[in-house]
């Protein structure tokens, strides 16, 4: 029938072009492939310069170092996918991890680790939900709202909760931070543990994948990022979407905070705040557009690994400390240049 013919005519590249999608097309549709490619190239380059990189220990270290950033990044990804941006998640993490740790120490020293984690997640989610409600209720770009709440949360933490470092963690937290899945023995008797908390990261990745790909909420998030007005018209409740994505990011931030405390074996209220831009950069390097509606969980993980590898191999490849910033800055610019997609933007006809 003619309509079908016309359709195939129009969707296929016109006259002369092959059916195989070009490189640019792949990059546009599956940007995470670019991230993975860059990641592989960097790893190979580092391994050539310094074969020590290939020890299992060093890979484990990368994995371990990426847990906190990775959790943050998955939260940021949810928000970017819905068309927002968040700079307050580090403050949420700091506020929950510190308040909770001092609560456990002072009031309920025997609280089981599971309960601590659950409380951290819930508290983070609540703080995140505040963001979501503000973004929805005030109808202002989330960048502005979360700058406000970042100052607010950090102010509350340092002005009203406390600034004293907590060095003596409750034993269950220390144990949680130290518990090892397995150990490697390297040269020189160096042992490398894969900590048990590392498992949380893949678990959350799986959860996030399920959420984004297999639930209505996941689709609603992308729908909102694609065009919020249309999404609202089609019945995707915008308030619940906003509250959910910010709550989700908050929950992951709370979790990341408590892992950070357990891993570093101290609760320092000054920690974490300041890494937000780097986390956002990781997510964007993973292929999520800052304008929303795109990206994938896999890409986000790749972006996090990329940033982690670059940050953790500077010494390994022998870049003197004075030059490290230049190298990292130049790297971000180069990687960003790879992402430049000149493909036409989706043609949006605005609602009346």
């Amino acid at each position: 029938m003619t309509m079908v013919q016309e359709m195939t005519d129009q969707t296929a590249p016109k006259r002369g072009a092959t059916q195989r999608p070009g490189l640019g097309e792949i990059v546009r549709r599956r940007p995470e492939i670019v991230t993975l490619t860059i990641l592989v190239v960097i790893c190979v380059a580092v391994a050539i310069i310094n074969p020590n990189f290939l020890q299992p220990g060093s890979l484990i270290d990368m994995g371990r170092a990426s847990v906190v950033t990775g959790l943050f990044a998955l939260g940021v990804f949810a928000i970017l996918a819905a068309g927002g941006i968040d700079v307050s998640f580090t403050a949420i993490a700091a506020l929950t991890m510190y308040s909770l740790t001092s609560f456990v120490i002072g009031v309920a020293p025997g609280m089981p680790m599971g309960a601590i984690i659950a409380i951290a997640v819930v508290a983070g989610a609540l703080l995140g939900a505040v963001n979501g409600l503000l973004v929805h209720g005030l109808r202002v770009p989330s960048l502005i709202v979360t700058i406000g709440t970042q100052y607010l949360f950090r102010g509350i933490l340092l002005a009203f909760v406390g600034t004293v470092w907590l060095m003596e963690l409750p034993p269950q937290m220390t144990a949680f931070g130290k518990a090892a899945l397995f150990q490697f023995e390297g040269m020189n008797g160096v042992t490398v543990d894969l900590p048990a908390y590392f498992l949380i990261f893949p678990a959350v990745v799986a959860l996030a994948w399920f959420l984004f790909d297999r639930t209505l909420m996941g689709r609603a998030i992308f729908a909102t990022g694609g065009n919020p007005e249309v999404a609202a018209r089609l019945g995707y409740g915008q308030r619940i979407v906003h509250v959910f994505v910010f709550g989700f990011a908050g929950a992951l931030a709370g979790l990341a905070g408590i892992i950070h405390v357990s891993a570093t074996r101290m609760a320092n209220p000054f920690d974490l705040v300041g890494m937000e831009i780097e986390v956002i950069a990781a997510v964007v390097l993973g292929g999520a557009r800052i304008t929303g509606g795109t990206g994938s969980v896999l890409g986000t993980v790749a972006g996090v690994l990329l940033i982690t590898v670059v940050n953790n191999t500077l010494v390994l490849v022998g870049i003197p400390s004075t030059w490290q910033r230049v190298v990292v800055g130049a790297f971000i610019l180069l990687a960003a240049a790879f992402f430049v997609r000149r493909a036409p933007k989706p043609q949006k006809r605005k609602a009346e």
Partner: protein
Amino acid sequence: MSDGHFLELRGIHKRFGGVHALRGVDVTIDTGVAYHLLGENGCGKSTFIKIISGAHPPSEGEILLDGRSHAELSPIQSLEAGIETVYQDLSLLPNLSVEENVALGEQLVSGGGRLMRRLNRARLRETAREAIRGVGLDSTPSLLATSVSDLPLAIRQRVAIARAIAADARLVIMDEPTTSLTRHEVEALIELVGQLLARDVAVLFVTHKLEECYRIGGQAIVFRDGQCIAQGPLEDYSRAELSHLMTGRELDTMRYRTGAPMAGEVLRVEGASSGAAFEDVSFGLDRGEVLGITGLSDSGRNEVALALAGHQPLTAGQIAIDGAPVHLDSPGAAIARGIGYVPEDRLSEGLFLQKSIYQNEVTLILDKLMGAGGIVDKRKGREAAREISEAMNLNTGDIDMPVSALSGGNQQRVLIGRWLSIEPELLVLHGPTVGVDVGSKDTIYRAIQAMAERGIALVIVSDDLPELLQNCDRILVMNNGRVVDALDAATADEDRIYQSMLGSEHEAA
């Protein structure tokens, strides 16, 4: 108290701040019937359908759904009742796949709008496949997985309708569904509507194209100034009666083109090709001449227009202005050569919606207005803007009003009027009256003719054949990237043009 009506609206009022958009509207809708909601720009049509679809709560009045009374509907309530709306922008989610756009709604609504539910991918695919077939598309996995933003407009339109089918709609509302379709595609749409009606679905059209209404048949609902002033079977009203009801004025369907081309060739396109878009296109244009270009949406007509405007580089051939070859590699270059272009999609490509009329009108002459010290001479600029708004007959004298507060027709006039400021040699108008009501069309056509009188050469790219016949000297028909026919507009008829548009495709088939 159910008397069998599907949907009944009683005494609906809607106020936006101080604006009284709907003033006591009563409308009844039954399933299996087509309705045509008619009225001038700004009379409240969109507002009305937004109230039915739950996008706006009414300020006053009652909505009866299957006999049950509601003060207002939420989007989910409306969807649950089987009311599906295909807005003018199609309301598709550009970044989601076709199958998701088509079939997500069904799962959303069956879950009462709750989002924290598992998505049944298998059911999603099944529903989508069926609905896609229902609108006459091939439901291949690759089509189902394509994101909507990668599809051409006509296919998107069908995807939007497929969504209504997938949701087992009882009422499908379409806000100006045919504005962006070629005639060929309109036929297919009308066929689809017939199928919907046969399945006892109600269809409510918002449209400005009367001939299409008659082809579909059904009931007319006429709005004027926020009130429903007539509802009844279409065949009870003649075209003139409907126009009169809508505008309160008499309009005649005359040929607007009265002048004639003047001496001196302005434009010459010679053997122009651009990649796969069009090939070996040649034509010339005199001062004050109005040339129409038409064809199916993929015939290359759009790209020819874009090439003239400096948006689409040529790969072969050349374009000459006043006999001198020009290299149009950017919009700026085209403007510098005195070529203006009015894009079809005025909201996203043409206008700075939140900015004032003044700012929209002076965009092209900012550099010219620059006076001493690099400062824009605001007095002169405002003068120019005021002149334009008078020449284009804008319905407001307040040039500081944001363009977003104007109706579609007035917005289009602002957009066309912008070019008066630079007195172009050639003006390319792409779909100049898309989505504009009869009254505004009249004003726009008069403005077009006035420009031709001033010696401006005009190219109108459109698939509104009456529009071309009424306004042009000559009409070029394109098909498959080539010019296949050139006709004298005064003597041409719609059928002949239509045949040429489809020409080769029919032969091939």
